[in-house]
């Protein structure tokens, strides 16, 4: 079947099997491999992308379901050479080690800040509960997201 969707601002029509998952459309058909597959069981959040601006786990969304919708992956965040403020926050606060969870973590954080622009540290921790990191212990990830937030409070 044909699925037409906008990915990072560019419209694509892709011929996929009906059972194709969004993450495979992105990685295997469009070659956008920033989005990782970790658990493949909806638990780890490594595959998080934005669907019409909201975070979803792309290993648990059918490609067919998003026909006509708009997807943003990590590749689409920066504005040319200018990084997104969440990316800047991760760099400034050393919010990554191996980097495997990072694309999903960043996309989840972008969605969180869109819904709650000035979260507390506790709200960041809870807001990212769907994303697992095996390296950092989360401390610097929380600092990175607070750095990116406007007028953040209660560090």
């Amino acid at each position, binding site marked *: *079947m044909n699925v037409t969707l906008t990915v990072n601002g560019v419209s694509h029509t892709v011929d996929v*099997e*009906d*059972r*194709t*998952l969004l993450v*495979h459309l992105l990685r295997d058909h469009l070659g956008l491999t920033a989005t990782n597959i970790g658990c*493949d*069981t*909806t*638990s780890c*959040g490594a595959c*998080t992308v934005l*669907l019409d601006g*909201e*975070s*979803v*786990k792309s*290993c*648990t*969304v*059918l490609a*067919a*379901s998003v*026909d006509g919708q708009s997807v943003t992956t990590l590749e689409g965040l920066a504005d040319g050479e200018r990084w997104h403020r969440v990316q800047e926050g991760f760099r400034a606060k050393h919010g990554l080690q191996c980097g495997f969870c990072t694309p999903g973590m960043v996309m*989840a954080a972008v*969605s*969180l800040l869109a*819904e709650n622009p000035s979260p507390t540290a506790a709200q960041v921790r809870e*807001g990212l*509960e*769907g*994303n697992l990191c095996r390296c950092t212990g989360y401390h610097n990830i929380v600092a990175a997201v607070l750095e990116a937030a406007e007028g953040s409070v209660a560090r």
Partner: protein
Amino acid sequence: MIPAPFDYVRADSADAALAALREHGDDAKLLAGGQSLLPLMKLRLATPGVVVDVSRAADLAYVREDGDVLAIGALTRHCDIVSAEVVTAHAPLLAHAASGVGDRQVRHRGTIGGSVAHADPSADLPTALLALDASYVVRGPAGERTITATEFATGFLETVLAPDELLIEIRVPKATGEAWGYQKFTRRAIDWATVAVAVQARGGGTAISLGNMGSTVLRAASAEAALAGGASAADAAQHADDGTEPAADVTASADYRRHLARVLTKRALAAAGRS
């Protein structure tokens, strides 16, 4: 992991979904948010021949006031229930329970109708809806029928829904200004409840429901009766597990679940101002 092959049918309205179910019969499965069905399909625990995708049926995504009742479309997502002011005002127990479902990503996709129809006894929304005396409106070839939350689930992941029926609306009698409590015990973030207890006061009475204390969500009938008979909350809570047959699994033994039911009932009653 990818699901076994199936034919995909998109149904963007209740009528289109019913027509597709009629056409494809027992081989068809409805897909709402997919947050329960797709994981099962990836593990090949579910292998429908036809998937009828209702995730974008706009006529089934709404929250509105209908006199003394909140009418919630089956395709309303968890995140929209959390943020709907009419839910916070008239059924805060439901908004609170929805805020604890999985994580933000799951709440951006998962729907109240999918959660009710899936009938997982450990799920948050069915537990809250049972204490709220909700009822479920179902549409099928023979027309519409309304089923109470008490009668809806018949066993583990089993309901009175026929394969050609669609859950269209959840009706919640308003509980404006009434006290409530919700206690969910989990070992890990984003997990389902090991045991959950919902308490909803209404017109002087108190409803208590239990999640994951049997093959369906349950009312704690003996504890409710004890309260109605004048027992203290602490004494009534001792009856929370009466008559239940909780499962034993990797997270808890049956005895531990019974213990949790009693403790969480006491805490939920305290949160609802009963001591």
